[in-house]
């Protein structure tokens, strides 16, 4: 998307008039005037998006005893509780990304083949599910696989016992989060998977290639960079997901996650908030790193096409 976007607008206008110092100055002034309507948005973005991030970095580097240093990061990384939250988030995000890639890739391909009519229903469903979540969704899953949920009861009658771990466990959290991240993965993937041309498959059939061979030699190599990029994106979003984890990981036996720790610290505000700031900066660094990797992989993918 972003690749095609920037192509046609940046061809600056060449002035046809002869240049004088005065017309140059007037030109510059008119350029500034022309840019004026964009200034409010830029200032607003700086105030509400850039400043807050700088404030976080500052707080994470400020020491309680005064001065500046990396002591807060050292403290977080050497505390076993905090390390557990970091590991929990990384593990959750990795599983989530992997599940999305494994289930979402064939799902996106299947939806591409549905044609306009089928997609007209599936796409809105994916849209809504991707921005759903929170307490309502958690409650629905509680009604399904909670201790007295419908599926749990059915299972108990058929096979006996309760096979489902709690929603706050690594299993529960991953199952719940798929409801949001799987649609996001599909929505991200469909445009790039749509670049697989029907003619390639036809050509493969004409040359008597099997379906497996087609996918191994043509289909997969083309979409592989996009699969990698979107899996990475889901990883980043999972690291930062908050609403669902906050709702289901309230009990102490639940998985510990960075975002939930940040949220609890911010709400309690009893202790110093440098731990929350440090965690937030760690998430920022990770997001910047994966964003860079995402762009790099996506450029690779665009080169193939």
């Amino acid at each position, binding site marked *: 998307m972003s690749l095609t976007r920037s192509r046609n607008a940046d061809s600056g206008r060449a002035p046809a008039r002869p240049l004088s110092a005065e017309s140059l100055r007037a030109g510059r002034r008119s350029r500034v005037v*022309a*840019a004026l309507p964009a200034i409010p948005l830029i200032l607003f*973005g700086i105030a509400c998006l850039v400043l807050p991030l700088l404030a976080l970095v500052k*707080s994470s580097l400020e020491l309680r005893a005064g001065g500046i240093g990396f002591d807060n990061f050292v403290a977080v990384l050497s505390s076993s509780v905090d390390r557990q939250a970091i590991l929990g988030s990384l593990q959750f995000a990795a599983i989530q990304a992997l599940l999305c890639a494994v289930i979402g890739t064939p799902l996106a391909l299947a939806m591409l083949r549905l044609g306009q009519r089928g997609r007209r229903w599936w796409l*809105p469903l994916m849209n809504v599910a991707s921005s759903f979540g929170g307490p*309502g969704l958690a*409650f629905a899953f509680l009604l399904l696989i909670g201790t007295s949920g419908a599926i749990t009861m059915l299972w108990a009658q058929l096979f006996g016992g309760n096979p489902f771990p709690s929603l706050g466990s690594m299993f529960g959290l991953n199952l719940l989060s798929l409801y949001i991240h799987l649609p996001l993965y599909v929505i991200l993937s469909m445009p790039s998977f749509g670049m697989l041309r029907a003619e390639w498959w036809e050509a493969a059939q004409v040359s008597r290639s099997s379906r497996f061979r087609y996918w191994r030699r043509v289909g997969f190599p083309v979409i592989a960079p996009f699969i990698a990029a979107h899996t990475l994106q889901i990883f980043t979003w999972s690291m930062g997901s908050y*609403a669902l984890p906050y709702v289901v990981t309230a009990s102490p036996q639940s998985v510990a996650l960075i975002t939930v720790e940040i949220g609890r610290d911010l709400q309690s505000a009893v202790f110093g908030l440098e731990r929350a700031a440090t965690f937030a900066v760690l998430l920022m660094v990770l997001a910047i790193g994966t964003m860079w990797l995402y762009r790099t992989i996506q450029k690779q993918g665009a080169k193939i096409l």
Partner: protein
Amino acid sequence: MSRAMTETGKSQRILLGAVAVFFGLPLVVLLLFSLADGWVGTILPTDFTLARWITSLSSTEVLAAAGRSLLLTVCVVVIDLVLVIPAAYVAVVTSPRVRPIIHALAVVPFALPWLVIAAGMQFTTAEIAPNLFGSFGLLTATIAAATFPYLYWAVENALLTNRAKELSEAAAVNGAGALQTTVRVIIPSIRTGIMSGTLLVAASAFGEFAITMTLAGAAYETLPLWALRMFSGRNPGAGGELAAITFTTFIAMFVLSLLITRIDTPRSITNAAGAFDLVPATKGK
């Protein structure tokens, strides 16, 4: 496309079916629970009642929370529209140099968790203006900043695909003033972009959790925060009401989303061009 590419195979139909069950079951169970008259220890409810629907849809708490969510959504949408449309126009038509700056800003809410943005806002206000914390203005501004890229991408895309630059140059040649050009040519030509972007902003503002929880909390109980209180609280009937409201929200958002996909088919270039008779009425790409 050949038949082999367009036809769904058997394994794909199984996959789609399984996914439909995964996404449908939670909705079914929410509907069942909202209609159940006590559902304990059985696979399916035995008695049904409309009581939860009546109490939840007429409860002042729910209505107040929904009202707050709606007010927040409207304010966020207005802020985004006022800030984004002129900026996108400038970025595409008059001074492309601001584009990289806006693009860089638009990446922030896409790459960073909104919780981090909210946390940053909390730290910033603590330092600069502590009395702003917990205010409606701060909450609205932060959500507007987090959601602006949805509208910006939609509008910028619409401006580019509808060749807004050529359109406004042609309008100027024909003697139209800046205001006339904006109101009669540009805005109509990007109407669908504005609408789909607005709906995206509205949907995410209405269901916003992380920023609202951090910056407002109990001080401004929106519908998602009400749902959280119902979920964690143990008062009787809360589950049924939560189920009813969640189900309703999902269906409402689904209808909204259907609308987005319907209006997203761009047809607008012919309409806009026709208004000024600038170019022969050709179909958009």
